[in-house]
């Protein structure tokens, strides 16, 4: 556990999405896949109350620049759960939520600072062109969210850490 924590902290600090040190974060690892043709996946994360209720998007990474007959927004619905629970109710691009697609690596995303204490589920969903789709959910408790899970194919570790 110790070495893993150390690696995690390093990842958080080096990630472009690292925010103020006081915030809780979810770190997401996109694995490097040995493929002849690899397109950066669409990825979304959200948090929702464990007992049900409105989902809140944390981030969505998609092709924001592609326009024309088949714009990048066309494949947002491939993030099936996120699209149903949150994406289709949002106006995109959304400030602080939308971002460009990212390659393999570990990224840390801050959780909202204004969550009321209670039980939540943090979910990360990935969909890749000509690839798979994977959903990983981590149950956590606020104010000290702490948990981890791992995907099998499109997602590596998903780690929620308290401030």
């Amino acid at each position, binding site marked *: 556990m110790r070495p893993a924590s150390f690696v995690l902290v390093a990842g958080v600090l080096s990630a472009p999405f690292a925010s103020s040190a006081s915030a809780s974060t979810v770190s997401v690892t996109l694995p490097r896949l040995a493929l002849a043709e690899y397109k950066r996946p669409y990825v979304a994360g959200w948090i929702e109350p464990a007992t049900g209720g409105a989902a809140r998007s944390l981030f969505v990474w998609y092709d924001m620049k592609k326009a024309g007959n088949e*714009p990048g*927004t*066309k*494949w*947002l*619905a491939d993030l*099936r*759960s996120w*699209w*149903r629970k949150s*994406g*289709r*109710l949002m106006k995109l691009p959304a400030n602080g939520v939308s971002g460009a697609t990212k390659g393999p690596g570990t990224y840390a995303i801050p959780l909202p600072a204004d969550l009321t204490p209670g039980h939540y589920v943090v979910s990360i969903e990935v969909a890749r062109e000509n690839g798979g*789709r994977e*959903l990983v959910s981590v149950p956590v408790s606020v104010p000290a969210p702490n948990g981890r899970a791992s995907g099998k194919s499109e997602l590596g570790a998903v780690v929620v850490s308290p401030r």
Partner: protein
Amino acid sequence: MRKISPWIMPALLAGTMIASTAQADSTYIKPSSTNSSGENNMVTFDAAGADHLFYLDHRPVQLNTITVTRPDGTPGTVINGLQQRFRSVFDLRLDQQGTWRIAAQQTMVTGTFMADGQERRVGGRRAPTPAAGGERQARAGEGQRAPANPGAPVRLPPVALADMPANATDVHLTEVINRTETFVTQGAPTDVAHSGKGLEFDPVTHPNAVVQGETARFRYLLDGKPAAGITVTVVADGDRYREATDALTLTTDKDGQVAITWPKAGLYWVSAQTQDKNPGEKRAELRRMITSETLEVMTP
């Protein structure tokens, strides 16, 4: 052979078939996708009546009976429509955000009467229009049932309702209203309006938010009021690859609702039927109503 016969209309329809061997078919409109993001997405549809869901093995839904309701309630237009032997196929460009309803409704009157000492059937296929390009021509003797034994009189072909003679007696007619529909949503879902006429699907759970492992509630309305105690049949896609149809049969509660927990993701056919004594056609005794929805159940 399907275990559940949702309705017997095809048996009445098919003049050349012996009623007891006729199979019921399931009318459906199958969308290529049900949830889309972005704008101006194109969806394509198959509309058919088939013995197995969702295959193409019996008849097309008449292309000219397809109606589209846009999210704002105005009518939409299908493009690239083609009516084939087993299906109608058409495209729809989603030029509004929200939930679109794609439907077809067929109303027919079927039954029997006596005239000049003979029993005649009403309904059935009308005589094929001659010289209509591409339409099937009548085969010799079509519509006539073979005599049960040699020497017995040949049964006469069915007549159209409009051609029923004035001296008809013992009139026993049923009005059959067969509605089928599906829903597709671009962007955020919107509510689906109902007309208050006949048997209608009035979803409590949005039809484009149905998920494996979750429970959806659907309400049925009869002339705008909750329809209690009616039968609802749920069939999953792919019954040609199963030994049995494995239909789930439910009955609406006092509020006209059923609850369905989806065992797995995929396409489902949800069909309700009932009958009453309020036909729109004055000479009919019964009104039989069927409404069938095609739903795509998504992964969690």
